[in-house]
């Protein structure tokens, strides 16, 4: 089961749906395949229609996982089953909701021969939306002033403090810019019905968004921050295209935040360069690699590779300054599946992903 340290690792990766709200799994896997010759990748899917399952050459093996809403015991049981089948010895979770469960299991997974690099629970809590203002203050980074909304009446005080427009945010996802009391109340009711209370009211800062990806070593060290500006965004505000930038202040600010958290693992720091005062504002801190992680790899910083090293207590590769001007445009393709894949997933909770087309059939068009 446990392989010797010389043989390439067998890495389990989740977050396998490259849909409208793109998940990071495919970018992480692509980076690992480039960085670790011979690596074996086991996909952990949550639905039989997770897109990566059908992408030739991406996964060596694939399993359905119970949803992260189950007890840690159930999750552990399944991971151990998969370990026994495949010999996974590294796990890279790519979804926020997996972290609370895996934090409970970290020690036991490690004992079971599955290495992972997770942030400390305290760091995870400290970067949560309601506490972001404290984090920014502690690190000397500007952030839009934020207050908690427990009732619709609280909007009045928020508007008095911040003026209009105002940003009303859900506790985990979604935000709306509102321009007056009526819009604010409507946003409050809509978001609270969807996500529950409390909501957040945030001062509106006009400007351009920049995102930085980085790897923290858990001791305050920050590796290969790579910054980008979104050039195409989806309806949900997600990057569909972006370009790497070289902005020392941007990198330095991200470094300061990641370091102050003593963050362990991958992360994304979202910032806004204000068009009024020119300062950088901290908007959000995501506790995992973003879906565009492969852009950093293409710019010279393979951070998922570093994450595997970190999990396995091995020295990290050197990270050069990333190249500016590298860009990506996401390209959606129809990944082809077959009835037998569905059957296998539905009845066994496992499927055999296709190898890369070149390996399968050197000649002629791909058969389905």
């Amino acid at each position, binding site marked *: 089961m446990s392989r010797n340290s010389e043989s390439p690792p067998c890495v389990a990766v989740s977050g396998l749906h490259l849909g409208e709200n793109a998940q990071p799994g495919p970018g992480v896997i692509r980076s690992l395949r480039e960085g670790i010759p011979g690596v074996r990748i086991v996909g952990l899917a949550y*639905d039989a*229609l997770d897109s990566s399952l059908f992408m030739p050459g991406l996964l060596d093996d694939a399993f359905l996982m*119970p*949803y992260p809403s189950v*007890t840690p015991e*159930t999750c552990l049981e399944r991971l151990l089953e998969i370990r026994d089948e495949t010999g996974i010895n590294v796990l890279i979770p790519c979804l926020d909701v997996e972290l609370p469960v895996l934090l409970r299991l970290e020690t036991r997974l490690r004992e079971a021969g599955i290495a992972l690099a997770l942030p400390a629970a305290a760091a995870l809590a400290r970067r949560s939306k309601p506490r972001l203002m404290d984090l920014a203050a502690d690190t000397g980074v500007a952030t839009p002033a934020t207050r908690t909304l427990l009732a619709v009446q609280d909007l009045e005080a928020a508007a008095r403090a911040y003026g209009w427009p105002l940003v009303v945010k859900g506790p985990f996802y979604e935000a709306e810019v509102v321009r007056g009391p009526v819009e604010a109340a409507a946003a409050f009711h809509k978001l609270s019905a969807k996500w529950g209370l409390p909501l957040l009211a945030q001062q509106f800062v006009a400007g351009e968004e920049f995102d930085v990806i980085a790897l923290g070593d858990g001791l305050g060290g920050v590796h290969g921050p790579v910054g980008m500006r979104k050039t195409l965004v989806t309806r949900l505000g997600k990057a569909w295209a972006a370009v790497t930038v070289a902005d020392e202040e941007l990198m330095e600010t991200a470094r300061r935040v990641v370091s102050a958290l003593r963050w362990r693992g991958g992360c994304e720091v979202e910032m806004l360069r204000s068009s009024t005062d020119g300062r950088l504002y901290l908007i959000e801190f995501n506790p995992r690699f973003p879906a565009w992680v492969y852009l950093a790899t293409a710019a010279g910083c393979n951070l998922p590779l570093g994450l595997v090293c970190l999990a396995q207590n091995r020295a990290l590769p050197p990270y050069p300054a990333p190249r500016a001007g590298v860009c990506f445009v996401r390209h959606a393709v129809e990944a082809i599946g077959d009835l037998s894949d569905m059957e296998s997933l539905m009845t*066994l909770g496992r499927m055999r992903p296709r190898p890369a087309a070149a390996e399968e059939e050197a000649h002629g068009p791909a058969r389905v």
Partner: protein
Amino acid sequence: MARPAYEKPTLVRNTIGLMNKAGRRADLDEESSLDGIPVTKLCAEFGSPLFVFSERRLRAKIQEAKDALARRHPKATLCWSYKTNYLDAICAVHHQEGSLAEVVSGMEYEKARRLGVPGDRIVFNGPAKTRTELERAVQERAIVHADHMEEICLLERIAAERGERPTVGLRVSLDAGVHPRWDRFGFNLESGQALQAARRIARGGRLNLGGLHTHIGTFITEPAAYGRSAATLAAFAGAVEKDTGARPTHLDLGGGYASTNTLGSQYHSGALAPTFAEYAEAIGSALVDAGDGTTPLLPLLVEAGRTLVDDCGTLLATVLSVKRLGDGRRAIVIDAGVNLLFTAWWYRLNVVPARNTGGFIEETVVYGPLCMNIDCIRESVALPDLKPGDRLSISPVGAYCVTQSMQFIHLRPACVMIDPRGRAHVIRRAEVLEDLTGPERLPEYLRLEGMREPGAVRRPAETGPARRD
């Protein structure tokens, strides 16, 4: 070769979001015995439904909480919140482990006294204390937290009549950043009412100032909220002392600590709830931080209920029927409903078969036995094909279910406690009709002698009021 066991033929359409066999199987985890006694044996001996409590688990929980508090505060005392579960046996275990009684009514007060708890080991809270109850509490030196100004006035009158000077604390409501904000109980801190009340007690000449109590909410899964309430309450205690010269006798951080139950609105499993040690850590460090390092910390009371007992209780129930609803969903009817499981309104209780049927797992609606549409225990839970007579265990149900259960349509079942040596003791017998009808009085003219024999129905006697037919 033996033929496979029959299960009802089942057809499920695979739809997105549900195409996860591993996900469907997730909740299924058989629990065929409780503290070493098979579920089938318990039901055969004591009937179904049946509340089962684990004394071993309860004592371990209390010890864990006491240790956690002792590690973080030099003078911390655990109080048992009676309303959570005031079965005598449950309360007795808490008191044997050294807990005070925390009661919120005269009935609960009386129950604690009857069990042998001295008045000065009872914390008397609640928004509706009567004059008689307060007189007794004063006489027996109970730890009283006043909820409103009328209560303070009443206590002043009682003090004057008795010619003594009782010690009276205050319930305080404060903003701990918790939703919903509980400001209906006690005196509000931020608006200055709490300080006014403290002044009234300290300067009124009839009462001594007791402790300061707050209770920020229920099922609070964020330990930091208790850190905030502890810091705020400690700062308020300092302000009171500075303003009135009277030093509060203690701080009481109330309850609301979560169990491993899962709220309907929670995404993650309740198994990820904070441990009691995390709450104790948040409270302890906030109080140390709030102190000046030289003045001794005020004694601390903590009122724990659900977090201690919820996970120690299971309800065993029996499948009565398995049916298909009009829209094709599978449903089961069991012999325990919301008459016994009030908490099913808010929590996704675990419903687990007591035997591994190994059958096809399907999302199933779990209905109770009441002839009421509202009687639903789970809207959807993954269960195998069950048969009438199959036993289920429903958990965690140690908190509130017994105290909030009702004689509605069905009588209440027995409660047993399994002692640490694995022996089951009946701690509340199953009810009989007399328990329901005992307090009833039927006016003479309504007696229905004539209905003894079919077909021999007589009109009520002329003694009754005139009737128009």
